[in-house]
């Protein structure tokens, strides 16, 4: 196998802006990626994540801001001079070339000698585990294999930055999970600074060093996956990443009172008054109906969904439903119709002030 380890470069996006026909797609995105880091941009359709990636690639022009790669301002450098490796969502392999020719194509454009590029293309195919398929055309490869060839092709030119534009979204669940781990392994091995765009939170949380959650063209929060999940900075992040209960309550000082339970606020500067507390399902405890020590709230189980080690229980409290996530061993007895008691763990919570129905996200 070729020595693929190389140090990545720093990538800086400074106040990037992009508008399309009066619609703001990217509204001042700033982000610094450390050398060799894998950052995932996560968000719903239309949030601007793909626009950001295409601006880094040079496939679109920014209306404002800068892209700095390895200390060099490349904002006005054409795509073919940026030394970018890119993997697209699907169908990007050249269909009239074999896997080997696809991988070697970038090197051919960089005028690498025939023997050298054949050798390196072989090594890159080995890196992604496709040596045996070197002479196959795209239509002879599965979707997952095609994306691995696309990854090898992107890395073969030893790019300064690797850009992955939802590379797993066209694949079925099992292949997606396997290829996700494969991409991470290869990325760690080559050490290329990587920007990964996805709308799949599980994918982003599993693969990235840091996750940037985007909404309406802006970066809502950037941080390690554990922080994004356990300490969301905004209601949008709390609701987009993972499941969240929206429980009506009243803010009083540094706390919000929900059905008699006082929960500390993540941001204690909120104005007093009615609010929606955003509570993770794992912060809700459920026990079969007993005395009040089992929990202050009484409800009825609507459904229990087995998820493996954990189970998700939906409880009707009369005016709202609440989701709880419990170890499966604790949820065995909680069948539909069971009377239960609920309690809320007093973790710091975010609040929302909108009028959306007070149910789970």
């Amino acid at each position: 196998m070729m020595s693929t380890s190389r140090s990545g470069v720093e990538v800086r996006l400074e106040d990037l802006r992009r508008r399309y026909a009066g619609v703001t797609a990217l509204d001042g995105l700033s982000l610094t990626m450390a050398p060799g880091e894998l950052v995932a941009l996560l968000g719903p359709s239309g949030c601007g994540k793909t626009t950001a990636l295409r601006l880094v690639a040079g496939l679109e022009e920014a209306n404002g801001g800068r892209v700095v790669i390895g200390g060099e301002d490349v904002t006005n450098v054409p795509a073919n001079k940026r030394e970018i490796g890119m993997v697209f969502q699907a169908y990007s392999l050249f269909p009239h070339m074999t896997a080997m020719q696809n991988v070697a194509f970038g090197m051919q454009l960089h005028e690498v000698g025939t023997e050298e590029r054949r050798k390196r293309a072989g090594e890159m195919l080995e890196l992604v585990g496709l040596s045996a398929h070197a002479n196959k055309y795209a239509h002879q490869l599965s979707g997952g294999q095609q994306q691995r060839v696309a990854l090898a092709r992107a890395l073969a030119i030893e790019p300064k930055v690797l850009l992955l534009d939802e590379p797993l979204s066209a694949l079925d669940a099992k292949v997606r999970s396997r290829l996700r781990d494969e991409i991470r392994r290869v990325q760690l091995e080559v050490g290329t600074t990587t920007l990964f765009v996805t709308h799949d939170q599980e994918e982003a949380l599993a693969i990235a060093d840091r996750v940037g959650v985007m909404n309406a063209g802006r970066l809502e929060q950037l941080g390690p996956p554990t922080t994004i999940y356990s300490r969301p900075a905004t209601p949008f992040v709390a609701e987009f990443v993972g499941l969240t209960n929206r429980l009506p309550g009243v803010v009083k000082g540094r706390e919000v009172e929900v059905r008699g339970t006082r929960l500390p606020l993540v941001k204690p500067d909120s104005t007093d008054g009615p609010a929606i507390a955003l509570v993770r399902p794992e912060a809700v405890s459920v026990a079969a109906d007993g005395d009040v020590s089992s929990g202050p709230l009484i409800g009825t189980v609507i459904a229990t969904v087995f998820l493996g080690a954990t189970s998700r229980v939906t409880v009707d409290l009369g005016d709202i439903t609440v989701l709880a996530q419990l170890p499966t061993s604790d949820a065995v007895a909680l069948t539909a119709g069971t009377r239960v008691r609920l309690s809320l763990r007093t973790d710091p919570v975010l609040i929302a002030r909108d009028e959306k129905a007070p149910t789970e996200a």
Partner: protein
Amino acid sequence: MTAAGNPAVAGVGRPITGGRRLSLTWVGAVPFLGYVSVFLFLPTIIIAAGAFLSDSGPTLSNFGNLSRSYIVSATINSLILSGITAVLGAALGAVLSYAIATGNPNGVLRRAAVSASGVLAQFGGVTLAFAALASIGPAGIVYLWMAQNNLDFYSSGTWLYDLRGLEVVYLYFQIPLMVLVFLPAVDGIRPQWREATESLGGNTWHYWRYVAGPLLAPAFLGATLLLFANSLSAYATAAALINQGGIILPLQISNAITSEVGLHEPGFAKAQAVVLIAIVGIVTALYAVLQRRTGRWLQ
């Protein structure tokens, strides 16, 4: 999954011996096979057989007569006419296809251009000849207007009724036919391929040289061959535009059957038709090979 690969449906048909089953999937093709048998294969056989017959019995003289100078000349003219209108029609139609494909896929312009191509590709015969006469004929409105503005394109002679005139008129249906045949191939070119080329360090030249060009070449060549065959076998437009003589082979075939002044030579007409059939057959076979290759890449 194909029927052949699916055990649940592979058993259609009656068992014969040893558990093997006779597939009946060909039954659906019977109407088509019947149609082409009656209207293509049977006439071809009759023509091919008739080419070896004269009033006095079997003969090879019909093929020997193909060496007559006016037949050689008409054959060469047919090949020149077909070659020029195929190449020009393909080139201009390809540019138009590219313009359509890169425009708004749901736009009015695309719908209008594709619909118009569908109609104009079938536009021929007396109608096309009349349209040519009424527009660019010596008394045509376009010609008269241009002549008044010192753009007399007949200043060195009226060429509408010779080979050059046929070339211009034939392009009227050749270009739209190219659009119909070539547009699906251009539509099959994915934008990711250009972007992948760019991200790998390539420029526009690299994209056309190594990616789009090789991908479209088989479809382009195949469509050019189809245009060649289309022009070679066209008769009605030339017959309506040119009353006398037979500057191309289809007109000579007609003359050999219906000539009021020459000999009535049905066997000779059939020998000429065999030449046309052979050329069109070769071209069609090449077209099929190229289409198969393109279809595999662009699926």
